[in-house]
């Protein structure tokens, strides 16, 4: 075998190793219990992903600028980088920051995921996507809440 052939073989073996294990069912509340108690977005991201270094790119979040009813704030994760493995939704309007964690399975389409959040007051919603290389990408939207979400 010439050198090029040997190198090609080596790379394909490494790649196969990385993707051999498909993502099994994961409950992030059990895997990363500390992250769910954190009171700041930065700390929750660190406890969830092991780093709080994030790049503001590759993610698109849709959330209303003004939410009359903080109890029901529609948030849509419009898109994330193609090789995203985990998506986290955080906010700084409630006592704890982490709202939801979505592991991306092979058949999960990581776009147009819509949820409704409960925001106690005005704040920002942050969606973080962790790609296969471990890097974090994010987008954030500020939401002004005219009527708090945890009343009554």
């Amino acid at each position, binding site marked *: 075998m010439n050198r090029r052939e040997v190198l090609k073989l080596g790379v394909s073996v490494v790649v196969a190793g990385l993707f051999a294990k498909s993502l099994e069912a994961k409950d992030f509340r059990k895997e990363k219990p500390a992250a769910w108690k954190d009171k700041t977005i930065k700390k929750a991201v660190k406890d969830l992903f092991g780093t709080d270094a994030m790049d503001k790119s590759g993610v698109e979040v849709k959330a209303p600028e003004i939410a009359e009813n903080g109890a029901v704030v529609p948030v849509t994760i419009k898109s994330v980088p193609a090789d995203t493995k985990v998506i986290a939704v955080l906010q700084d309007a409630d006592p704890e920051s982490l*709202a939801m964690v979505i592991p991306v399975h092979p058949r999960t389409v990581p776009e147009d995921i819509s*949820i409704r959040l409960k925001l106690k007051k005005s704040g920002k919603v942050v969606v973080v996507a962790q790609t296969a290389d471990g890097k974090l990408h994010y987008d954030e939207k500020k939401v002004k809440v005219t009527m708090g979400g945890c009343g009554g």
Partner: protein
Amino acid sequence: MGIKLRFVGKEKNGVTSVKGMVKHPMLSYDQAKRQGKKANFITYMKVTQGGDVVFEASTSQFLSKNPIFKFKFKGGKKGEKFTVYVEDLLGNKAEKSFPIR
């Protein structure tokens, strides 16, 4: 109090779009305290189809009451089923299958 699941799945061009609601009070610790009740909210959701996990999420007290979810997954054919399973903080579970239209 049973957790009720109401989901609809529509397949188009090889992708199934799902919209659904989980009937649950989603009482945060704050709200529970004020109402003199126990905090309880959906903590985990798993959607399977054809033996695969197609959507999964760990959730918190910060999702709205009777939370609505919209998501998509690859594959699934009209007539096949997908199954939604949820768990809440107090250990209640619910599971229901729905047809893909």
